[in-house]
């Protein structure tokens, strides 16, 4: 990107300059994502015949649901100028708690499968909300840095999840749960995809059409200014982490339904992946900037790249290296974009 913008100044006035100006404006407005997406599509399509097929891309869309949900939550934390490293733990806790409750209720009342599922879901969501509330109180009330707070909670939550299960997956969930939330579909659209679409729409309305959304952006953009404008900044921060946990929890429920068991390792690398998805989608690590629709595509992009690497038979170890490098590259570019946006200070 650096190179492209440098060329803008050196070729000003010629015809390609107009195209460069357009690309530059696009870069400032939405970030690096369109460029990365085009590059990935071109590269993987050239590298393999199996990549750009309707079946494969549909598959990517279905697989990306979980990351998209978590990335939407992560975006809330990022927009306020923080981040949430405990999203993986939130998924694990949701999975383990909801599975435990479902198995218990289904065991006591074998005929009431849907009651067991409902109670399980509520318990999972409540447990995740508790994590979000702890994060929110620590960050908003006691001023703990989001890094330390969510890192600590991540460890605490992972420990609790392992303690509950003893490290053994919880099986024998009611079949109705997996059949609907894992593999079901309505009008031909998979249930997880429907839920992700619904979540994205709600998030879009929240961020673009409600006061709360405006205040989330304001707190991240300049917390002192937000305070001087009469905004309760503590409440806004708290809300961001609570909602982030709820979104991660929904992803946790869908993943549990997919694997049909309560597991502690469902959220393994999702903290890193969700931050990468957001940053590549133009959510600034400095806060105050980020668009819901871009984050959805950002989550899709990460899964697309992982899918492409699988098709090219790149090993999972090497995939970790590339994913981390991609995140760092995206952050470097984000710094550069922020300077273009806000000017030198």
């Amino acid at each position, binding site marked *: 990107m650096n190179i492209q913008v440098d060329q803008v100044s050196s070729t000003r006035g010629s015809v390609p300059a107009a195209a460069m100006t357009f690309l530059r404006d696009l870069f400032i407005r939405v970030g690096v994502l369109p460029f990365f997406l085009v590059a990935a599509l071109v590269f993987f399509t050239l590298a393999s015949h199996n990549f750009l097929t309707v079946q494969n891309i549909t598959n990517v869309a279905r697989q990306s649901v979980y990351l998209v949900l978590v990335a939407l939550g992560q975006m809330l934390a990022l927009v306020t100028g923080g981040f949430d490293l405990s999203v993986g733990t939130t998924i694990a806790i949701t999975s383990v708690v909801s599975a435990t409750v479902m198995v218990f209720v289904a065991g006591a009342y074998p005929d009431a499968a849907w009651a067991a599922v409902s109670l399980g879901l509520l318990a999972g969501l409540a447990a995740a909300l508790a994590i979000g509330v702890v994060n929110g109180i620590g960050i908003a009330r006691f001023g703990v840095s989001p890094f330390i707070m969510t890192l600590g909670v991540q460890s605490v939550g992972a420990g609790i999840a392992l303690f509950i299960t003893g490290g053994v997956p919880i099986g024998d969930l009611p079949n109705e749960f997996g059949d609907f939330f894992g593999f079901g579909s309505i009008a031909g659209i998979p249930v997880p995809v429907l839920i992700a679409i619904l979540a994205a729409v709600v998030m879009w*309305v929240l961020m*673009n*059409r*409600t*006061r709360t*959304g*405006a*205040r989330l*952006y*304001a707190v*991240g*953009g*300049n917390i*002192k*200014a*937000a*305070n*001087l*404008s*009469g*905004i*309760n900044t503590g409440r806004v921060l708290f809300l961001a982490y609570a909602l982030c946990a709820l979104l991660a929890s929904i992803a946790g429920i869908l993943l549990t339904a997919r694997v049909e068991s309560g597991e502690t390792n469902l959220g393994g690398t999702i903290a890193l992946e969700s931050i990468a998805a957001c940053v590549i989608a133009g959510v*600034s690590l400095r806060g*105050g*900037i980020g668009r819901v629709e871009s984050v959805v595509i950002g989550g899709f992009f990460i899964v697309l790249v992982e899918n492409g690497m699988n098709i090219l038979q790149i090993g999972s170890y090497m995939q970790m290296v590339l994913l981390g490098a991609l995140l760092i590259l995206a952050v470097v570019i984000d710094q550069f974009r922020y300077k273009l*946006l*806000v*000017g*030198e200070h």
Partner: protein
Amino acid sequence: MTSSDMPLVEMTGICKEFPGVKALDGVDFTLMPGEVHVLFGENGAGKSTLISILAGVYQPTSGHFRINGRDARFPSVKGARAAGVCAVFQEFSLVPTMSVAQNLFLGSELLSGPFVDHGRARREAEKLFGELGFSIDVGAPVAALSRAQQQMVEIAKAFHAKARILILDEPTASLTERETAMLFRFIGEARAAGVGIVYISHRMHEFAAIANRITVLRDGKLVRTVDAAATSESELIELMTGRSIDRIYPDIDLASAPETVMKVRGLEGPGVHGVSFDIRKGEVLGIAGLVGSGKSRAFRTLFGLSGTVAGTVVLDGHDVTGATPETLTARGVFYLPSDRKREGLFLGADARDNIALSMLNRPDTRDALGFRSPARLRRLTDDIGRRIDISQAFLNRTVAKLSGGNQQKVLFGKALSVEREIYILDEPTVGVDMGTRAAIYRLIKQMAETGKAVVVISSDLAEVMNLSHRLLVFANGTIAAELAGEAINEQTVLGHFFQGGRLGA
């Protein structure tokens, strides 16, 4: 009592203590409906603290505070706003990443049903700016605006809130004359509507046009409240400083044949668009300009704090263009930053260690084996302590617990810790009391008269005009004028501030 002679604001015996500092000490202040009441005083006199209490940012330590005759104690800015108090602070309360319209309605967003109505916000914002006569694109992000435009947004925000009590903290500091006239027209209208206005400004010539009463503060104490029409500018200065004007600024002798020590040619960097000047030994070079004029940035670029884009800097015949602060410090250049807490001092360390850290390269701080000698450092820092007029007790105290004035002295102690050739002083007296100010001016006099080159960058026009032998006026990242001797006067300098008119765009 009728409503018109009941004060909007009644403050009596207001005290405010911060750890180690008494910012306000028994101040009385009243504001009547339809009155413009000026708060006047030096930086650090307590004006900002007083308006922060009024606006709900701070709580007073003690004292009575009534609004509309009722006891007021605002737990938050929101509480103060609900009581009709609205403040436009110098430090803008705008979110740079959001649009003008969004900023205008921040905290009181317009709704249609449960949803924010962006279209109406835009239309209302356009209408408001139209009424105010400010031309501005309400869809533009605030980050893209000039400082003057951001100021207009701040003022519009206050007018929009229909404040009963309006606090304006140096509102004209970055406005052009035309914009200032517009602002005064609106102050007049607001006053006619019964709004009380607390107005902070250093520009005494503005008071005649708008002020009813002037309250003068010095070192956190009330000096006197006077009638604006019956008080001359020189009386105000005497009230503010506690001494007559010719006794604050020392006469600094100019070296008979100042020799050029640094040549800067066509320097460009962030916010600096090609400046050329010489720095001479035994001379005080003053740098004036508005915030954002590049006056500070030019020297930060020169000192290697932000990237040099073009130009050359020659120091004593050596090319030091784009050199690092390390190299320049080794060559005897010192930069005193304007923000002492963020860039100048190690707040958790004591004053002695702060000074000692700047002299670790001196051979005479080491013992026979080449190790740091605490005894020698102690002796040397004691010497510095005497030069900057700071007591032993203060030398051993954590810097965070010293007053602003003493912190600034410690910063000068760092400057004096090693023999230097060029002192670049960025806002040398910001937020210090009168006594320290005089002491700092004596140090500057000493520096210049012992043949060092001194650069004083300052937003305090009186300071920079009275100290300088030569004065560069910055505007829009370039040098608008170079003045010397008798040519240095307020009207000329102010005239050059707005060169090119870009700020008014």
